[in-house]
């Protein structure tokens, strides 16, 4: 039983990180129907910003997190302006290829600066409590609590504020929204900023949980988060959160019950099977073509 609870805790930790990154994919898709494949690498840069803040500037956790979120949000906006905006009217394939290119650029740029893996200095004292054999660390609790808080904040913004309403309006009908006075460009920039900022936060939290980082770390995690977004229904905020936890659960349970080699096989198979039965994901809505 303690074994089960220990693994369940792993599920929540991994799931909340996946969910945070998946939000970035889903927000951009929701507003531009475009998949920002550079998002996994934004997450990686977020972890490196956290490293620089902690190791070079000696910042404690909260300022490091803020700095990383802010820097990545800015980077997200710059990428949108320079790389994606000129292609907004181009075929969608061009935008996706550009996104892949931006991702590779970020990866190799980091690689060119320094190919060496980095260790994140401990940003706070880690305490481990034992509850009847289950080891719970303060880091785990912090990661879970912060991710959940960020997710609820985002959910609130999208559903309860004017900004959120503007986002939903653009997502609904990008052609008509500007006629109603919605500043499309600005809202898209803010969406990228929020999505990327969450990626930066995820990078920081990931770096806390797995304190050795390298320029390739965003590739696999990015793909996994993308699967989470698709499983949950890409374009749906709550779907991305649910998808993240589902994928975390599938991965940990596979590794716990079967030989751990099957882990990726099963998570990618899950995506395929789910897409057969629910092509729009769990909370996704089928698109109707307007004539």
């Amino acid at each position, binding site marked *: 039983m303690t*074994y089960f609870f*220990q*693994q369940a805790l*792993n599920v929540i*930790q*991994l799931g909340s990180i996946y969910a945070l990154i998946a939000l970035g994919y889903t927000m951009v898709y929701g507003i531009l129907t475009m998949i920002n494949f550079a998002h996994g690498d934004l997450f990686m840069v977020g972890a490196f910003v956290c490293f620089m803040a902690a190791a070079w500037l000696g910042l404690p956790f909260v300022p490091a997190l803020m700095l990383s979120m802010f820097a990545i949000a800015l980077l997200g906006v710059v990428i949108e302006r320079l790389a994606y905006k000129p292609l907004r009217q181009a075929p969608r394939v061009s935008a996706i290829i550009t996104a892949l290119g931006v991702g590779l650029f970020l990866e190799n740029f980091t*690689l060119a600066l320094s*190919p*060496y*893996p*980095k*260790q994140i200095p401990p940003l706070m004292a*880690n305490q*481990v409590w*034992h509850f009847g054999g289950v*080891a719970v*660390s303060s*880091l785990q609790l912090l990661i879970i609590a912060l991710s959940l808080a960020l997710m609820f904040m985002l959910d609130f913004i999208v559903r309860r504020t004017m900004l959120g309403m503007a986002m939903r309006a653009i997502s609904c009908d990008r052609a008509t929204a500007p006629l109603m006075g919605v500043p499309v460009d600005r809202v898209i920039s803010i969406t990228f900023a929020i999505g990327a900022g969450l990626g930066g936060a995820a990078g920081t939290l990931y770096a806390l949980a*797995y*304190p*050795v980082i*390298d320029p*390739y*770390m965003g*590739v*696999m*995690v990015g793909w996994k988060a993308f699967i989470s977004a698709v499983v949950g229904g890409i374009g749906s905020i709550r779907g991305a959160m649910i998808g993240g936890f589902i994928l975390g659960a599938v*991965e*940990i*349970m*596979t*590794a*716990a019950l079967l*030989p*751990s*080699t099957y*882990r*990726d096989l099963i998570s990618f198979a899950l995506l395929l099977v789910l897409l057969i039965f629910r092509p729009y994901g769990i909370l996704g809505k089928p698109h109707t073509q307007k004539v």
Partner: protein
Amino acid sequence: MSGSLMGSAIAGIAALMLFGCASQGGGDKILVGVIAELTGDIPAVGASCKNAAELAVKEINDSGGINAGGRKYPIKLFIEDTTGKTEQSVSAVHRLIMEDDVVAIVGPNASRYAVPASEVAEGAKVLMITPWCTNPKATIDVKTGQPKKYVFRACFEDMFQGRLVAKFALDNLKKKTAAVLYDVASEYNKGQAEYFKKTYEENGGKIVAFETYTANNNDYSAQLVKIKDANPEVIFLPNYYTEVPLQIQLAKRLGITAPFLGSDTWGSSDLLKLCGDDCEGYFFSTHYAADMATTAAKSFINSYTAKYGNPPDDVAALTYDTFGLLTQALQKAGKIDRQAVRDAMAKITDYQGVTGNMQFKEGSGDPIKSAVIVQIKDGKFSFYAFAHP
């Protein structure tokens, strides 16, 4: 008529390109290729290899060059990068052999690049010496089970090492149950894990958990909880220095208290940087330790430290030895010819290097040499014991 002439001319050129002729000296220089992991997932390995190679060549050239057949030739290096990709390391071998016309190749170091590269070198009949690749498949042809004729290494091989670590865990540490966590997609890690398991079980030990992961999956939590549940007395991590610190730190966070044990992939000074205090007291098997060094080795260690600012790790020491072996082979061969150098290499019976004495026997590319057990003490690698074959 002219068609067949053309044909034979092309065939002749092709043969020249493939096997070169007797002139792999580039005239008055000895051309040597180096393939190192400069970028990619283990950049510290490539950097050490390149540094040691450049130092060795500088020393040789400063002394006037290698004496082969009564004339001294300086060495010219061609350095290629594996970029962390198998296909890149294979094309690097092609490039060195066909375009740069080298007489011998040093590297690659990691098994996943060295094994495919060795196939190309063997096919082209060019001497390749890998400093650090311990996988048996580098020097053995998998299809025929016969040893390769043109591929040598400067280190011991996996089977020897896996056996050694298993025995050390049982006999010296007196640990009767063990767990293993390894990267199933990497040749080296998989080989080590399997030889360890075999020897450990044959000698009365019990493997209570045998867990795997694949590279780029940094979440080891599920596997570690499984290992914790199996409650082993010792945990063997035959993984690269970039992953080991993370694995140990996560394990400690989950409340695992059993000591860890490693293999030669731990021996990079980057491990100490990435680990902090978390690796204190653990043992691993490797090729050499800086504090057991002989007088010959001391001068290498001093000049390396003076030039690069940090003491040489095992890759650097082995690369330096590889150049020592190559020098001896060239001197013995007496001419700069691929076949003659290979034949002389196979006949080296006594080479005293930084990493100990080596001896080769015709019919095997593996040297006969001993290994070292190192303990991490006060944030440094310190010599613990010798382990003989």
